[in-house]
């Protein structure tokens, strides 16, 4: 069984570099201000090719969540969760909730980005419940 692997287009590389540095950045469109995820060459709102990498605020809200009970990847031992989070900047990302689990529903909870090392020395951004 293979381990997880990031998709690494030339547009993804700066994002993962920023994550390794402990500050997740995404492209903000120079034309209309929209944030882009996954990273890419062009803005889907205004088609501008120009963008600037910006630090994320680190804030977001849980849209949905699942728990894996089947093993698909050597570095993920079930059960483990995955959450879809809408970032304050707009894009939706899929990540994992670490730390204490919410009492009652997960959906709508405020979360903040934190950083964890993986087995190969890379950094993975996850979220925990906001204070």
């Amino acid at each position, binding site marked *: 069984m293979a381990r*997880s692997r990031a998709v690494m287009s030339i547009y993804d590389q700066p994002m993962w570099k920023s994550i390794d540095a402990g500050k997740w950045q995404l492209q903000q469109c120079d034309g209309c201000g929209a944030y882009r995820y996954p990273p890419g060459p062009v803005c889907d709102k205004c088609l501008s090719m120009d963008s600037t990498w910006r630090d994320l605020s680190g804030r977001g809200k849980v849209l*949905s969540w699942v*728990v894996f009970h089947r093993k*698909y*990847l050597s570095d993920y031992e079930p059960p483990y969760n995955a959450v879809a989070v809408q970032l304050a900047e707009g894009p939706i990302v899929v990540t994992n909730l670490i730390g204490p689990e919410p009492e009652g529903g997960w959906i709508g909870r405020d979360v903040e980005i934190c950083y964890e090392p993986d087995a190969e020395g890379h950094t993975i951004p996850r979220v925990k419940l906001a204070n």
Partner: protein
Amino acid sequence: MSLSKVAAVIGVGQTDYVGDYARVRAGQKLHDSYGYAALAFNDALADAGIARDAIDGLIVGPTVAYERVGELLGINPTWGGQRDAMLAVIEACMAIHSGLATTVACIYGNDQRSAAVQYGGPQAMGGDLFLSYVYHSPWGYTSQGALYAMMFRRFQEMTGITEAQLGEVAVAQRLHASLTPHALMRQTITIEDYLASRYICEPLHLLDYCLINDGGVAFIISEAGLAKKIGKKTPVPIHGVGRYDLNRGATSLEPRLLDFYRPAQEKCAAQVYDMAGIGPKDMDAVQVYDSFSCHVPFALEGYGYCRSGDAGRFMQEDGISLNGKLPVNTAGGHLSETYMQGWAHQVEAVRQVRGECGARQVPDCRFVHYNSDVAGKAVSVIYGK
């Protein structure tokens, strides 16, 4: 321009799902995807009562190479290509309408079980075409089931649909499979069995997931006038088709999580109902692409079979089995009949309209609506008398 009744299905064919399932599980492999495709094509030719040389269009499924299928079957067509099940139907109608072909064979074969095709993990099938299948892997988020589990959890939060209500899908389709001699899973189940089945990606249970098996499907679509002359059975016209895609935000799951594909379904529904000149109240049965059971409640709401937010109650009280108000996936679907990626659903729709379905026949079946909401697009086809 309308494609209504431009073309009709004159023949359908399939492989021996039950026999091949047993053989593959016993470690035998008689065929690969091409062999299954050829078996299904011969079956469809026999059902239509036509010779191979009547075929002048060839559309193959995404699991086989177009040229190689044409080579193996000895078909030099005037129109050809590679499409998934629903787009094969639409493209056949378009080719016929434009005069580029008169009789189109649509052929699928898949050895996914014996070839151990992976639908999750780093080698997930389709990852080269759909970035969402592989992009979230660094967070352990993989498999198409997980995409729909995430979507269904939010749908639960928004509509209040319960797991027991979702279980109606697996239970109804298993009942239908029990009445279908060629279906793989024929032992009936209860809601309690469903709830007791293990989670794969919670909130989805094992019984919410499609089967994985080897097989092939073929259908032959001919120009409507020609269909009446060359086929041995009464042709089944295609009354309408529809399509709408939601590509924006696809990888970040935005159309799934924020909209449940609803805008695509509504646009697709308007197109297909307009073209056919009928609506949901006229349908005698519905076939839904059910890689996961939750496609069914999404479709019931999106295509106007019940009010928004009411699918859970509709399935439980009105019913989606042959005993209920609206029979859905009348042969058992991907969950219990066979996982032919939407191709076998077309065959079942045609057989229901023909009245060939024996114990699972919908009485006086006039119209069957097929719809599919996978891989970012909503597609519909209406078959009828």
